[in-house]
């Protein structure tokens, strides 16, 4: 049966602000779903409160509602659009499902005659209510771990007595494992049980017998209305049971499953999906497999919706799960749809991979001082990267190179841990550095059997690590002049960076690079095509690798490359890498718009990024996608291959920006603002001179490299003083100190963490108002796209502040200063493209805190509030395609828009929630208010006093 003709207008619910456990993967899935529905001529209506998303662009849906995700908003939308036939709640994570259920319970869908598609409520209820789910599984013969439900403290205690320890406590109806914990010892049980009960909205926890050390797997399924089910991807967690899958290093396809066990798992997954209800769409099933000869399989959970894992599976296989799931929700059958990659075969099939992907989560524990850094069943990571390679080892290396934590890969970078006790401790209590510690443990000579005994990581993975280390040892016996081609090729095939090889050979990175050129050991690009090259693919989704040669019958010998370079003019956009605090989805929004704008200007667009959650890494965003680490070596090789007109760095946040220097040094053109200007803005001394020359005030400051210097500076500047390292992200290490003792402590602390770094000491303008402006400049004209006033006083990181657009109580005089300063600075910095400037306002004087000639976190927010495509304009200006005066700016906003920060503190119960100069929020939402009499504004504003009184 083709699509249901009754469905003409569909409401999609987004996932709201980014929090731990629910990140930009839902922008990716929502965006795909909207495009997919539109292809079928469906009218789309979207609700999402997150302004930093592509999906909320006016062009993405017929009607976009940037409203809080509440049933009140739903009712408003349904009243305004009585034509809505159905709601698709499976694209917006648990948030969307929960809102859908709430609306269902209140009878709203029924009142407005709206059908729920893509899932059925009964299915959600079954999968979320662990007791019901368990009963159902037992009924259909699917084994589960011993488990029981407690709705009271007393009942919980009884269960613990029965099962014994270790146990797992999971709170019902929560996100990303919130309220979940491992209980190893009886004495910890009371506290953790209480917390679980409190966190669950229905005051219910599930207590499981812990399957510590069992191998963990996930399958991604799609089902159509004709009950056809296919498995899109199998994912193996390298970290066994005990670490949340969102915090696990995961690998696809599954590496250590025999066909027999895999097929049993496949059968179980299909059986489970069919058993929970009758719906067409995506589904994720998690399993544990016993690490013994029995290979028993136990079901962990099932999620009847698009998930973080399905986003990963889409990127891992090339199969666009959300896009197809949206079509299935319309009533299409899989066999009526095309494989989107080959465009010649059926969507009813199971992708096969001829490469391996490794996902590594990205944590931000440094932002959550006092947090428990040990990984467990509650998710703590804020982002993730994916590496694609022709072997597990290559993929693992590429993923570690993508993390941007100043590591060059596994080992051979001089950063290895060599402390036996620390290594054992870190193997026992996994944290963010587990992926590196395993290598260090092997390098130290700790037997694999011991590492396995502690970590329970499958021996196959550990042996892959060991092979890497043996190769490193072998290479280290050579010098740059003596190394042979075969060995160098093998090192590159296993993912070692030139820098690491240089480290092993005791030479310079450039020498290794030259040696590679000499030997012809060059990167080739391969396609992600869902079918292991069985069919010709149409989709330009590439990754790099190194291959042995082929030789044609007429003697032409070369490694085979699939990325054919066209003769069109090309622009490369550098992505922003893994999400982290201070650099999130906003920059992906900017990159996507940069790509689209460059395409409008007639360029072939090339995207480089390594974050699988994003829209920028969707295969139909840019003309060509290179899913590669935003790591110098990979980028330079792509540039060498593609020979673009230039590279856009100012849209991808600090990740892309910090590559500007090297690009310039190697003669690659930076599109828009030059590296010199970027550097000038970053260098506090030079920047202050520029301000001085332009008669623009700034807080008194100085630069220190030792505690002594800092102390001397403090005598001049007066306390309070804001101390921060230069060249950091999201206010990392930033602190306000009020006396010499504090100052010394913080300076010593920072210098020990970042030896050799310069520290900036600013006189802190106490009680000042903070404001910021974003502008587009073409070098001659400046257009200010928005000025925002922070509700919180100066001293709270701008990313953590509530920002009002336009300002609500700045006088004309102040506003004029802001405008004048912004224009002067933008021109003085020779900005071409976007610039963000932050101000402190005290006694009607506007001081400059900092200027960043790049896309900022607030650009998407302003674009959404005013309904204007600012990144598009800015990109066209950068490319020299347009001047600022070419655009007919027409911002539309009644009243005010507030950018509200959203935090994920519930994942870190012991962390200091106090806000300060270091950013802690993970996401944001937008709130429109008509006037300052609005209750919500009043409430936020009243909190300002609290900060001032401190």
């Amino acid at each position, binding site marked *: 049966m083709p699509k249901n003709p009754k469905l003409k207008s569909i409401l999609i619910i987004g996932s709201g602000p980014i929090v731990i456990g629910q990140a930009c993967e839902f922008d990716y899935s929502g965006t795909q779903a909207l495009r997919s529905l539109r292809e079928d001529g469906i009218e789309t209506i979207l609700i999402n409160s997150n302004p930093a998303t592509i999906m909320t662009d006016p062009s993405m849906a017929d009607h976009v509602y940037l409203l809080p995700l509440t049933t009140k908003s739903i009712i408003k939308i349904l009243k305004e659009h009585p034509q809505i036939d159905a709601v698709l709640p499976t694209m917006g994570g648990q948030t969307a499902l929960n809102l859908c259920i709430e609306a269902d319970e209140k009878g709203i869908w029924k009142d407005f005659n709206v059908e729920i598609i893509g899932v059925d409520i009964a299915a959600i209820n079954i999968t979320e209510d662990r007791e019901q789910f368990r009963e159902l599984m037992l009924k259909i013969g699917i084994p589960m771990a011993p488990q029981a439900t407690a709705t009271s403290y007393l009942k919980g205690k009884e269960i613990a007595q029965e099962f014994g320890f270790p146990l797992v406590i999971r709170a019902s109806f929560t996100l990303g494992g919130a309220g979940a914990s491992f209980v190893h010892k009886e004495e910890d049980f009371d506290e953790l049980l209480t917390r679980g009960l409190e966190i669950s909205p229905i005051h219910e926890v599930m207590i499981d017998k812990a399957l510590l050390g069992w191998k963990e797997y996930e399958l991604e399924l799609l089902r159509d209305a004709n009950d056809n089910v296919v498995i899109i991807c199998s994912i193996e967690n390298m970290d066994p049971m005990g670490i949340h899958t969102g915090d696990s290093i995961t690998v696809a*396809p*599954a*590496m250590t499953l025999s066909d027999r066990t895999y097929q049993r798992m496949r059968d179980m997954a299909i059986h489970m999906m069919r058993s929970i209800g009758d719906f067409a769409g995506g589904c994720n099933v998690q399993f544990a497999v016993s690490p013994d000869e029995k290979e028993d399989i136990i079901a962990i959970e099932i999620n009847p919706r698009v998930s973080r894992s399905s986003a990963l599976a889409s990127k891992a296989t090339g199969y666009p799960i959300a896009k197809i799931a949206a079509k299935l929700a319309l009533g299409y059958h899989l066999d009526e749809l095309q494989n989107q990659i080959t465009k010649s075969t059926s969507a009813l099939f199971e992708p096969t991979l*001829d490469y391996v992907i490794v996902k590594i989560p990205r944590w931000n524990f440094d932002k959550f001082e006092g947090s428990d850094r040990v990984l467990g069943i509650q998710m703590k990571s804020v982002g993730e990267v994916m590496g694609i390679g*022709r072997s597990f080892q290559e993929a693992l290396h590429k993923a570690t190179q993508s993390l941007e934590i100043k590591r060059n890969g596994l080992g051979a970078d001089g950063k290895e841990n060599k402390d036996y006790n620390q290594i054992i401790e870190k193997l026992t209590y996994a944290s963010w550095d587990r992926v590196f510690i395993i290598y260090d443990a092997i390098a130290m000579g700790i037997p694999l059997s011991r590492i396995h005994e502690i970590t329970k990581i499958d021996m*196959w993975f550990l042996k892959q690590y060991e092979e890497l280390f043996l190769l490193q040892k072998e290479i280290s016996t050579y010098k740059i002049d003596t190394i042979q081609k075969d060995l160098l090729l093998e090192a590159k095939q296993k993912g070692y960076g030139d820098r690491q090889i240089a480290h092993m050979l005791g030479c310079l990175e450039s020498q290794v690079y030259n040696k590679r050129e000499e030997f012809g050991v060059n990167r080739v690009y391969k396609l992600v095509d869902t079918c292991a090259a069985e069919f010709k693919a149409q989709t330009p989704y590439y990754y790099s690798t190194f291959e042995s040669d*082929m030789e044609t019958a007429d003697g032409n010998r070369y490694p085979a490359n699939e990325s054919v370079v066209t003769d069109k003019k090309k622009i490369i956009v550098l992505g922003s890498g893994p999400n982290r605090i201070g650099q999130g989805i906003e920059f992906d929004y900017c990159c996507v718009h940069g790509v689209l704008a460059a395409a409008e200007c007639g360029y072939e667009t090339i995207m480089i990024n390594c974050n699988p959650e994003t829209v920028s890494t969707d295969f139909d965003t840019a003309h060509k996608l290179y899913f590669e680490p935003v790591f110098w070596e990979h980028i330079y090789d792509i540039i060498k291959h593609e020979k673009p007109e230039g590279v856009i760095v100012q849209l991808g946040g600090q990740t892309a920006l910090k590559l500007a220097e090297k690009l310039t040094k190697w003669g690659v053109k930076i599109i828009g603002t030059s590296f010199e200007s970027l550097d000038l803005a970053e260098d506090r001394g030079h920047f202050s001179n520029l301000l001085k020359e332009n008669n623009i005030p700034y807080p008194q400051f100085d630069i220190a490299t030792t505690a002594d210097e800092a102390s001397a500076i403090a005598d001049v500047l007066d306390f309070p003083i804001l101390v921060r390292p230069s060249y950091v992200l999201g206010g990392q290490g930033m602190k306000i100190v009020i006396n010499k003792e504090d100052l010394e402590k913080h300076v010593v602390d920072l210098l020990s963490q970042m030896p050799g770094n310069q520290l900036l000491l600013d006189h802190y303008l106490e009680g000042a108002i903070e404001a910021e402006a974003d502008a587009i400049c073409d070098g001659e004209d400046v257009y200010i796209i928005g000025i925002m006033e922070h509700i919180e006083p100066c001293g709270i990181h701008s990313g953590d502040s509530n920002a009002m657009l336009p300002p609500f109580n700045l006088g004309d005089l102040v506003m004029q200063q802001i405008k004048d300063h912004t224009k002067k600075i933008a021109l003085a910095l020779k900005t071409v493209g976007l610039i963000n400037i932050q101000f402190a306002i005290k006694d009607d004087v506007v001081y400059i805190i900092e200027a960043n000639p790049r896309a900022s976190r607030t650009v998407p927010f302003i674009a959404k509030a005013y309904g204007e495509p600012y990144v598009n304009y800015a990109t066209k200006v950068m490319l020299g395609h347009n001047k600022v005066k070419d655009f007919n700016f027409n911002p539309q906003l009644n009243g005010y828009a507030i950018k509200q920060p959203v935090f994920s503190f519930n994942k870190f119960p012991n962390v200091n929630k106090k806000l300060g100069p270091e950013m802690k929020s993970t996401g944001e939402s937008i709130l429109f208010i008509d006037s300052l009499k609005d209750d919500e504004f009043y409430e936020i504003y009243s909190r300002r006093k609290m900060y001032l009184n401190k």
Partner: protein
Amino acid sequence: MKYQKRQKAIILLADGTIFYGKAVGNKQGTAFGEVCFNTGMTGYQEIFTDPSYYGQLMVATNAHIGNYGVNADEVESDSIKIAGLICKNFSYVYSRVDAEGSLESFLDKNNLLAISDVDTRALVSYIRDNGAMNAVISTDVDNIEGLKKQLLEVPDMDGLELASQVSTKEPYFVGNENATYKISVLDLGIKKNILRNLAKRDAYIKVFPYNATFEDLEAFKPDGYFLSNGPGDPEPLVEAQALAKEIIKRDLPLFGICLGHQVIALANGVSTYKMHNGHRGINHPVKNLMTGKGEITSQNHGFAVNREEAEAHPDLKVTHVHLNDHTVAGLAMKNKNCFSVQYHPEASPGPHDASYLFDQFIENIKKN
């Protein structure tokens, strides 16, 4: 453990194209066959021991091969049947509690030559674009001209009868002799899991050599007849075709898989042809035209049944089609108790979506 340097090896295609790699386990040797690729991500042991692959050089597209070692009860016949293995990363190490040894030692025991570190993706793309062809893998990398000459002597797969090479020499029995049903099986290169699937459905089975006659099979007094999978071209299998005709003539329950399916088509006068590069993998989509449902199937064939002729045939109906290229995936005879599929409902390796076909066969037997 020490770093191991591996010896050079090549694969040379009949058209002169060469792909470079390394010899697995530093074994020396040369092996000839038709090069084909399998896209399955699991089940290498089942694939290597599947008699249908007899005489073929197998390219495994999965990035790693050998990860979980080998296990005695996951074989599809008594020995490795492929002529040689070509892969990207050969896993010398393995991890599985239940495994009996490494893939390397299994290949050694079967004296099979394997080469690794080949750009298998480029090779597969090449076969896809240029069709399946004969090839040689060898560690004799300095003797390309000599290998080319030898390669010329390898017979073409088109028209080649291979079932006789892998069929049992003597009849044998499988299952419980007190089972409800008795089935006579013609072994053209049968996979063990077909027999397991039949035995599991309460059948006692007698397996006959490829050239057995109807009388031989009938003497077992079977309730049903089965024609197995196997290697090579179905056309030269005239004895098997005559046998099929006889069973059909008497309207006895008949089921054929893969080569058996092709033999049934030929017995009905429908021709078969050699495909460009065949279907080999465990992700092949098939639509059951009787129910309208899709199934993900395990496939392994280089020949196929002519669809136009099958559709035009008054006694045949096409029951299943391959969703990617719309080739015939299943046939049934309109007024006879006979059906067949091109793919592998016994899986092993692969999904179990089509195991209902064995139930259907038993139902057909019951109906009789």
